[in-house]
């Protein structure tokens, strides 16, 4: 691997930038692998990287039906936080935040992780009570959440409107200072480059069309648009299409796929210092390093695979943004798009084994999977390598729906997130 450093930059500068090599190979698929990851987003590429790096599996393929990071990895609003209510969630998401903190160094790739703080706005008495409960629960779990009065919130984020005559006035906020954003493409590319250097074959434009199982029921191969690939282990990180891939192995999933929309504005000078979220009025906003406001909306009302949603959903979000930040009322939006997110009944992910031997799944991240990318990848790799869950992802099993051990972040937050 061609490492990135100031010295390398200097050398390439002297050579007229002509010596840079592609960051990963484009291999043809081999007939067999020790493990196959389905889905070349951050989660899947990360799992391949950790399998190769920490568990010694080198003969791995990542199969991606489109291009790397072209699914939800490239479509989200890049918010990273770990201020979840339940102990299991706090452990999982904070595991990810801790990995984020060292990820650029680990991968020798600048993922632009920026711990600028994530502030969640409370607009009702109910919000205030729920958020304060979250703050206390988080602090018991060693997560740095704090409660802010409206004045403190405005001091932290000066564009914020805290006038009392708003439709949904700001009654306070919870702030996680270790939260922030990262560059989503760089996460996929950084993992891809490091995994490739460890011998992982990254195969794009390769859609899985069937999963073959042997007489004992264990997986033995995947059929793809680029031929048959034999493997004893399949890890599925296919987000919105997980139900379809698991269906190929005869596993029914507790998932429904919804469109989730996001949009960006024209780029402007730095005006917005942090990430602001409002679950109550469905507004999620930060400013990218390019200067665009990055805005996330809520999910559409109905399940769909169309990669687009209704205009009234984004309009509702922009109404809220304009009320919270009146200075943005004359901003123009440049692009909007949708991603397909797989939502579980309890709004917590599923990471672990399935009833089929050799088939592992990482799914159900719903509207907030990006933040967990390194943690999900790391625990999926552990589970695939050892055929048993890591203590952190053990509670997030598919079995929990059968056993009734739900991790009900839906009830905890009262919205999808």
């Amino acid at each position, binding site marked *: 691997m061609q490492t990135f450093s100031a010295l390398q930059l200097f050398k390439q500068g002297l050579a007229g930038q002509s010596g840079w090599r592609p960051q990963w190979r484009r291999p043809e698929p081999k007939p067999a692998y020790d493990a196959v990851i389905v889905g070349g987003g951050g989660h899947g590429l990360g799992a391949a990287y950790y399998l190769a790096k920490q568990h010694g599996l080198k003969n791995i393929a990542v199969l991606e039906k489109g291009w790397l990071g072209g699914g939800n990895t490239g479509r989200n609003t890049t918010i990273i936080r770990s201020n979840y209510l339940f102990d299991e969630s706090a452990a999982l998401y904070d595991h990810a935040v801790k990995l984020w903190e060292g990820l650029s160094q680990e991968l020798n790739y600048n993922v632009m992780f920026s711990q600028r703080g994530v502030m969640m706005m409370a607009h009702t008495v109910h919000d205030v009570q729920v958020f304060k409960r979250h703050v206390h629960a988080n602090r018991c779990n060693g997560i740095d959440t704090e409660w802010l009065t409206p004045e403190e919130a405005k001091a932290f984020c000066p564009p914020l409107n805290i006038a009392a005559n708003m439709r949904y006035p700001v009654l306070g906020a919870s702030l996680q200072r270790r939260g922030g954003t990262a560059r989503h493409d760089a996460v996929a590319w950084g993992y891809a480059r490091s995994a490739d250097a460890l011998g992982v074959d990254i195969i794009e434009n390769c859609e899985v069309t069937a999963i073959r199982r042997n007489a004992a029921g264990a997986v033995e191969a995947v059929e793809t648009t680029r031929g048959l690939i034999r493997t004893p282990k399949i890890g599925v990180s296919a987000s919105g*299409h997980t*139900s*379809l891939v698991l269906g190929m192995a005869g596993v*029914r*999933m*507790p*998932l*429904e*796929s919804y469109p989730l929309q996001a949009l960006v504005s024209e780029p402007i000078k730095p005006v917005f210092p942090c990430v602001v979220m409002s679950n109550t009025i469905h507004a999620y906003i930060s400013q990218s390093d390019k200067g665009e406001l990055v805005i996330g909306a809520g999910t559409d*009302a*109905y*399940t*769909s*695979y*169309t990669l687009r949603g*209704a*205009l*009234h959903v984004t309009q509702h979000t922009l109404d809220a943004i304009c009320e919270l930040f009146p200075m943005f009322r004359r901003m123009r939006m440049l692009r909007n798009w949708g991603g397909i997110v*797989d939502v579980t*009944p309890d709004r917590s992910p599923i990471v672990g084994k399935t009833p089929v031997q050799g088939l592992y799944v990482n799914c159900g991240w719903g509207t907030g999977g990006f933040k967990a990318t390194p943690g999900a990848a790391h625990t999926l790799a552990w589970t695939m390598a050892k055929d048993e869950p890591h203590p952190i992802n053990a509670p997030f099993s598919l079995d929990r*729906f*059968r056993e009734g051990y739900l991790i009900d972040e839906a009830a905890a937050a009262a919205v999808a997130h």
Partner: protein
Amino acid sequence: MLLIPCPYCGPRPEIEFIHGGEAHIARPPVPADVSVEDWTDYLYLRTNEKGVHAERWRHTHGCARFFNALRDTTTDQILATYKAGEARPDTSTVKA
């Protein structure tokens, strides 16, 4: 925004409705007699169809009644709507 033909009121904009999830999932009459697997299936497992999907809608801001719709989840085109209790119409002759 979808234009949804309510079988009682006719075509109305999507914001008058709420989505009620997958249709034709009957609650087992005596839950105590159902196996854990079947109860899990009833409560949580969903088809999540990519293609023609039968789903419930409720015309909350209209007649307030539930009905079912067949919608292609790859195009969002509604192929048919029908009253609750009626059998799923055959859409093989409908052009998607």
